[in-house]
């Protein structure tokens, strides 16, 4: 295999993967927060919130991510004028696209986070919520103090799968020009047609390096966190 391209200073492979990592971490944090709120809505006693949560999850979970990200750029930003960076900044387009990509990933991934957490909530015995209500907790307190701490512990493993899927889904951000790993790969595939196998192997390896430890670490956390009854 030919790895000569590694010495070409135009190819900032580490920099591209760093963008991938940033996309992943920001989108993961956002999805976790928004997904938890969505899950709370889906189990709430208020029909309007339940309806919103259900509709949201069903719409965005079933829309292709590519479509969501392109819509973020074309519809939200170009047509509706949503701007997420300072226009006077020299890196405006780059920043704006990066932030739109994070937002799009959050909108999409939060649906999977929501459904994982909701399945976790269902594993908490109904008696827990009743005991909490009987000692005077309101719905929000029951959820945040008693139910979610137990539910989240039981969904670390499924959330790890969501995180790994998210890491790989960041590659779709190349569709709106975010300079992450797969965009660089496309460029290199065009320029280094004699070293295709090498290029693909490097990027495949890069993703394995990112996702494998994630899976192992969170698998260990899942074991530690399990609620013993």
């Amino acid at each position: 295999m030919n790895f000569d391209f590694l010495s070409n200073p135009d190819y900032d492979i580490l920099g591209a993967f760093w963008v991938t990592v940033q996309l992943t971490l920001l989108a993961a944090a956002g999805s976790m927060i928004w997904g938890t709120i969505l899950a709370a809505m889906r189990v709430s006693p208020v029909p309007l919130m339940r309806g919103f949560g259900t509709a949201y999850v069903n719409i965005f979970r079933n829309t292709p991510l590519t479509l969501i990200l392109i819509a973020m750029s074309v519809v939200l930003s170009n047509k509706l004028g949503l701007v997420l960076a300072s226009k006077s900044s020299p890196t405006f387009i780059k920043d704006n696209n990066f932030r739109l990509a994070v937002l799009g990933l959050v909108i999409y991934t939060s649906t999977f986070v929501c459904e994982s957490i909701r399945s976790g909530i269902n594993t908490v015995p109904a008696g827990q919520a009743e005991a909490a209500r009987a000692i005077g907790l309101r719905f929000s307190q029951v959820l945040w103090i008693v139910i979610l701490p137990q539910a989240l512990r039981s969904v670390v493993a499924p959330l790890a799968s969501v995180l790994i899927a998210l890491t790989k889904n960041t590659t779709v951000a190349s569709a709106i020009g975010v300079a992450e790993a797969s965009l660089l790969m496309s460029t290199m595939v065009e320029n280094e047609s004699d070293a295709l196998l090498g290029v693909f192997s490097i990027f495949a390896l890069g993703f394995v390096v990112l996702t494998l430890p994630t899976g192992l670490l969170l698998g260990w956390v899942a074991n530690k966190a399990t609620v013993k009854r």
Partner: protein
Amino acid sequence: MASVELTGLVKQYPNGVRGVDGVDLSIGDGEFFALLGPSGCGKTTLLRTLAGLEVATEGTIKIGDEDVTALPPGDRDIAMVFQDYALFPHMTVTDNIAYPLRIKRIRKAERVARATETAEGLSLGVLMERRPSQLSGGQQQRVALARAIACHPRVFLFDEPLSNLDARLRLEARTFLKKLQQSLGVTTVFVTHDQAEALAMADRMAVMEAGRIRQIGTPREVFQRPASTFVANFIGATPMNLIDGQVVSGRLDLGGFTLSVPPEFDVAEGDKIVYGLRPEYLSFAASAPASKDTVQGTVAAVENLGVNVLVAVDAGEHSLRAVVPEADEPEVGSTAWLTPAPGRALLYRGDDGELIGS
């Protein structure tokens, strides 16, 4: 501490089933009150409605002088102990006990002090930093009790708190709970399906069937004079003998044998009745006694109860049960004479099973 007053209480589920169907009940201040009944009789629904976990469809609930029918559970000043304890598995024993106090905005120092004091009283002192999964069933039950006690509520609600313990521990816990309730003096409503538990612990009890109360009274009253054949069947370690019969020529014709009409019951010639007598009140003899009011039969089965044996005697169309001291244990197939103890027999109306004259 407070009395509890239920008036015309109904809990109807959306599917039309009435879990609680018109209950009027008055529980005195400091009373230990048992709700007893078979599974599905509505006793737990009644307790949950009292707790505020279910919303009453009709009727009112008063705790003390306050109408709490529409209040959420947290504002009723009650503490509930659940059948499976429902301890929070992600919190330590201390936090489990102190959490309700935090909801009541009691300062941390006092919370911890109260939790520790309550736990010490229930010999949980050394377990304070453990989590519920590291405790035995009996210890978990005491943590659940401590959580309720530390709240200093006006009313305790216990939903079968002993049923998850093994048989021996249950007896210990029974005594413990009774003593605890007496020393705290807090009004307590206790749900159980175990008639022995209700008889042993309650000051007064209500027997429920199909969402309604069938009888209210002290354990002695309910045991000695069950108000209906349903209650008679349900109460007592060995089931009561209940025999269909009719008043014929001034005597009770019970199908194959006759007995005299107990004098305290007012029956007329031809009335259909059910004759009820506890096996403990049927004395057994292996030879014919002098009394005329006796039933002759054949021993069909003998069950060992420990100190006593339960003897099933086939007489006429019926099988009668009698409790016999172990020394007098008869052979299966031998002839036996059974004599009702005077003043112990009960007569129920044949049509609706209600106690005659009650």
